């Protein structure tokens, strides 16, 4: 994985492709939900997004970083209901947290496999952590390092994936 710079022209295309492909594939396969890419940008730092986020750490020989997947409540309820095959009003807070955690696990896992193959490097993932609340902060995250922000639209709502990787 190469560093993400704060210049749009220098966003790592292989990372963007891997992230977009993993996200659309995970949602389609596991939850029969289509996600459409809306925006790709580089930001100087992480920005709070949505009502609930799942965060997972990634580390490799050449650096470390994180994936943060954030959803509005209404959309995550719908996706969790499709994952579990129940109606959205039956989704508990625990189901919601579990669903977002497992989604970021699968998306980061697929991205990791893609990048490992491309770069011939072994990456490892941490266990996911879930944070809830409007404009929630992620305190344990790469600081002073640019973030790749990928915004998707699904079922008329947007959700975001933010990825940061700091090289040693």
């Amino acid at each position: 994985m190469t560093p993400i710079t704060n210049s749009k022209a220098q966003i790592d295309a292989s990372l963007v492709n891997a992230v977009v492909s993993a996200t659309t594939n995970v949602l389609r396969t596991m939850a029969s939900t289509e996600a459409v890419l809306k925006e790709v940008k580089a930001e100087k730092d992480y920005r709070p997004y949505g009502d609930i986020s799942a965060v997972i750490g990634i580390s490799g020989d050449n650096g470390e970083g994180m994936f943060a997947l954030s959803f509005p409540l209404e959309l995550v309820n719908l996706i969790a209901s499709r994952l579990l095959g129940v109606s959205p009003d039956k989704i508990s807070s625990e189901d919601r947290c579990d669903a977002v955690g497992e989604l970021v696990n699968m998306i980061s896992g697929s991205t990791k496999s893609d990048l490992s193959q491309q770069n011939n490097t072994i990456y490892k993932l941490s266990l996911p952590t879930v944070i809830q609340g409007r404009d929630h902060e992620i305190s344990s995250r790469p600081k002073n390092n640019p973030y790749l922000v990928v915004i998707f639209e699904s079922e008329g709502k947007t959700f975001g994936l933010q990825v940061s990787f700091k090289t040693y």
Partner: protein
Amino acid sequence: MKFLIADDAGVMRKIISRALIELNALPENIVEAENGKQAVEEAHKHSFSLIFMDWNMPEMLGIDAVAAIRAAGIKSPILMVTTEGEKANVVRAIQTGATNYLVKPFSPDDIKEKITQLIGPIPVQTPQDAALAKAQALDLERGKVTLE
């Protein structure tokens, strides 16, 4: 037939349970574990027709649980169900004792196909059949058979 699902994500345990139930498994015959350590403990307690094993779990990794289960001489088939899709990890899992491998994400048809491939069709079992099997197992543990 009894099944063990080891995954730290409750949502994934529910997805696999649903696939098993749709293939005729009885809910009372599905045991869940939240980490590798619990999985090893459960594998010692019951004889499972199939064990589903995640890789990245707290307490003990799934790959270490597979090694511990095989070291104990337990021969139940183990299906790794994981995001670890790299070829090296697949090879490592099979060498450690996993019977087969399914990379997440998967569709309901993907996992049902793997289950059938590994153990064949699950016979239809009524709750009465399950109760009878449980009673027989209990009596065998006590060293006597008292079924009427």
